């Protein structure tokens, strides 16, 4: 039952994402660009390059993957310490 529910949810999400991306003309920019950046540029204070600029090819993908893995590992490690499986708790 749970697997069917999860499968259905993933299918619905994938369908929604496909329809959204296929037919929408939105740029899906972040609010940093669409709001913060817009007002900053109008006020002649455009954003500067970050100290470590990751906007090079696939580098953002790698760094986000590493950040997700590190964050996920840390969260999971402490989660297991605080919420041990029922048979061991």
């Amino acid at each position, binding site marked *: 039952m749970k697997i069917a529910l999860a499968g259905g949810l993933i299918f619905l999400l994938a369908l929604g994402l496909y329809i959204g991306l296929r037919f929408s003309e939105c740029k899906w920019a972040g609010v940093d660009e669409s*709001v913060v*950046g817009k007002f900053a540029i109008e006020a002649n204070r455009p954003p*500067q390059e*970050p100290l470590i600029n990751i906007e090079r090819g696939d580098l*953002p993908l790698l*760094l*986000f993957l590493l950040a997700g893995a590190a964050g996920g590992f840390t969260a999971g490690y*402490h989660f297991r*310490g605080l919420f041990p499986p029922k048979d061991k708790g």
Partner: protein
Amino acid sequence: MKIRRRSITVIIVFTSLLVLPDVPAFAMHISEGILPVRWAILWFAVSAPFLFLGLREVRLRGQNNAQLKPMIGLVGAAVFIISCMPIPVPAAGSCSHPCGTGIAAIFIGPLLTVVVTSVALVLQALFLAHGGLTTLGANVASMGVAGAFTGYLSFILARRLTGRWWIGAFLAGLLSDWATYSVTSFQLATALHGNAPLGKFFLTVLIAFVPTQVPLGIVEGFLCVGAYKFILTRRPELLKIFAV
């Protein structure tokens, strides 16, 4: 000697930040270079006492509670992941991120939330081009201080007034998100309004955030209820241990 070495490091870091090249970059929170130096310093000054008190609380509460540090680690990782996760909002046609500080504040308290938020924001500014080091004080003030204290106070007040934990948890998530973006709007308005009236500029920025942050705030409210319900079901004693 140690203090002198630290002072030199701080001066070098700040000087190098001020001479960064003027190239557009797009990141979440308030990006590098948007705030003029005096405003950046002011927001560092606003955030610093909260961070200092938070670090002191880690030491004091950690002495009597062996489970505090794992909880801080878990909550810190959650804030890091949640606050760098761009979520598409179909109603607005753009992406934004929730903050996670409402959940953090009701589990570990507002001061410890300031600490974990600061760590998350430093890592994001250094390695993910999210936010910036010169704007770190402003981002800690909006997400860490305003988000955490609003979420925490909403939870306490709503629970006392209604007697229902889920109303408190929902409001903590919702209002912490909205407080964060309201303070960000205020920070941008004070620094960038120029000759325009401050109040009008503030409202213009705030309204620009509405299409994304109204739905995301509601999502964050439900997220908060789910997380609280999970702990209430699995280990309710943790809520008593970490009650501030």
